[in-house]
């Protein structure tokens, strides 16, 4: 589904990613962990197509297409979803209106009929309930006055509405208490399926107790230094990130 090859990225001349290789197969969950400043969020932003990043080298192939060549909205319509670490507020635009436009843009792209207001509302109610949010949230302006937890749950709600093929979760656990964390994780788990993949970016192992990954990668200084299964996350938890650079034995990472 997703192949990242030797990806080098800089911002304002400063190198952030120094040769990332990553393969994501359909239906798998990959956790990308790493200390602050290791390039985790840059990776998420580059996949989603945010402006301001210079691709110096390498390629990203998504379902056989050159992902880096697509505009962000095309990536979204093709099924790439980014759950933002810091979702922005858009005053005066209701979540309902926004999501309906988004869902219909995606449906149109897929050659499907657009949803009527009634159909949309029915679908939205169905998706929002399990996230412990009230349908009234739909009438509020996008993220305006939302608590940290509400913002993150809204991201998961949007993901559920858009049914992406590749979901990138950028530090979705940050700022969540344990109850909110469980709700968010349940939301993600309920979306796991054989043709949907997840890249879960997190600083802490905590989230991975609830969203159990198939693979764990450790990003350090712009490179994936270590890959393994879910036990790697536990090891990181107990030993911290410091040991990676000290006695790391580089492992083959491609092809997991």
């Amino acid at each position, binding site marked *: 589904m997703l192949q990242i090859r030797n990806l080098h990225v800089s911002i304002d001349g400063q190198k952030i990613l120094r040769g990332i290789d990553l393969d994501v197969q359909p239906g798998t969950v990959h956790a990308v962990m790493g200390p602050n400043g290791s390039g985790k969020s840059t990776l998420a932003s580059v996949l*989603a*197509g*945010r*402006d*301001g990043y*210079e691709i110096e080298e390498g390629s990203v192939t998504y379902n056989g297409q050159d992902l880096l060549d697509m*505009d*962000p*909205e095309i*990536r*979204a*319509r093709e099924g790439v*979803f*980014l759950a*933002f670490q810091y*979702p*922005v507020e*858009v*005053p*005066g*635009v209701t979540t309902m*209106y*926004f*999501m309906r*436009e*988004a869902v219909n*843009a*995606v449906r149109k*792209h897929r050659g499907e009929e657009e949803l009527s207001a009634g159909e949309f509302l029915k679908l939205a109610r169905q998706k929002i309930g399990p996230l412990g949010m009230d349908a009234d949230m739909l009438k509020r*302006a*996008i993220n305006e006055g939302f608590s940290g937890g509400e913002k993150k749950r809204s991201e998961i709600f*949007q993901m559920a509405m*858009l049914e992406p093929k590749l979901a990138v979760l950028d530090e979705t656990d940050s700022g969540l208490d344990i109850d909110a964390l469980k709700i968010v994780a349940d939301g993600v788990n309920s979306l796991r399926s054989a043709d949907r993949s997840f890249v879960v970016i997190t600083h802490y192992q905590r989230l991975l107790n609830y969203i159990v990954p198939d693979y764990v990668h450790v990003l350090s200084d712009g490179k994936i230094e270590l890959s393994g299964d879910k036990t790697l996350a536990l090891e990181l938890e107990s030993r911290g990130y410091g040991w990676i650079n000290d006695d790391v034995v580089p492992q083959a990472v491609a092809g997991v």
Partner: protein
Amino acid sequence: MSSAVEQLEGLTAQEYKYGFVTDIDQETLPPGLTEDTVRFISAKKEEPEWLLDWRLKAFRQWQGMTEPTWPNVSYPKIDYQSISYYAAPKSADDKPKSLDEVDPELLATYEKLGIPLEERAVLAGVAVDAVFDSVSVATTFREKLADAGVIFMSISEAVREHPELVRKYLGSVVPPSDNFFAALNSAVFSDGSFVFIPKGVTCPMELSTYFRINAMNTGQFERTLIVAEDDSYVSYLEGCTAPMRDQNQLHAAVVELVALENARIKYSTVQNWYPGDKDGNGGIYNFVTKRGACRGKRSKISWTQVETGSAITWKYPSCILIGDGSVGEFYSVAVTNNHQQADTGTKMIHIGKDTTSTIVSKGISAGVSNNSYRGLVKIMPKAEGARNFSQCDSMLMGDRCGAHTFPYLEVRNKTAQVEHEATTSKIGEDQIFYLNQRGIETEDAVSMIVNGFCKEVFRELPMEFAVEAQKLLGVSLEGSVG
């Protein structure tokens, strides 16, 4: 790297949709302004002596006045002798008695503008007065309105048919000596609309005037007067367009509103005069004085404006809150793109007790334009318990445009409560990216963000106008991002 800032810069103005010229036989006065010009206009309209005298007095006052220089706009000096002060379609010489007699070319013009004058075709519930250059060419639904006791006609006709009403109220809110442009208008105004809602009547439909400048080198000086007697209600809409011309054209209108006890007047404007081309050539100078007097107790005047056109806008729809418990409102969206300049806002003068006013202003600047909010809230000594809330938000698109806020507060009663909030933001690249990431393209994202920003104002507009305004906003800013 194509940053969003560069995208913002990649600004190409959308073609102005209403820029066509109607080829019609016109009677136009040669350029120049003297007492004879004033006499000519007055004679043309077969006006009574008192009105000619009123005009001449205004003209003499105007001669002694100077153009205001305090607005935050710049333009080359206007040569008032190079403007023609009267242009009228020839066929309107003897005013048509029914729509069937209106020149088909004119009907076609309004059709093209999306304002069908055929009564059958007119949107249910909206009566239209169409003003073409200097004269009113058609007023629809007059009979239906007359049945309700509502008078809706051109001001020239009103002078003939209801001289006592016109004489009583004309200039009573905006006296000729009020300011340079009001004096000029008083001297040479050619037409406009007159509305009178008698006591206890709720006007059965929305009233609207559609202003169209067609002739070249011609100024448009319309005068609108709306009087709402006790316990009456009227909602009035105003729209404006003009052809694309290389030269600037002057539009100096005066609008006066009078609300008596418990009366409510809702006045909405969608101003889309030709803004000039993307290099700043041509466009309308929109120098307008609009003011309403809440004379009766608990009366209410509400101004809503969406200003997207004109090369320069200079306008401050205001309320004088005389009656105890009267209410003034001002909701404004002003958009400037390319080289447009806007200096707009309001004045709320609290004179009566327990008067309240609300100001919500949204300024959006793109291109190399300049957008200023200028507002005065004045609480007079006897305005016990007066309250005002003002909110002025500015949004910048790109980094070559300007947003300015000039709020003036004058409080002379210590029981008054006055609140002012102001924000300035740049349209967020983060916001656009967020919407992009959900599959929404940049143009739609910008329109969504801007419409969200203006929501509090749009919801004050009558339904059809709100839809129109949203579309217009999209068009005005088209190409300003991405």
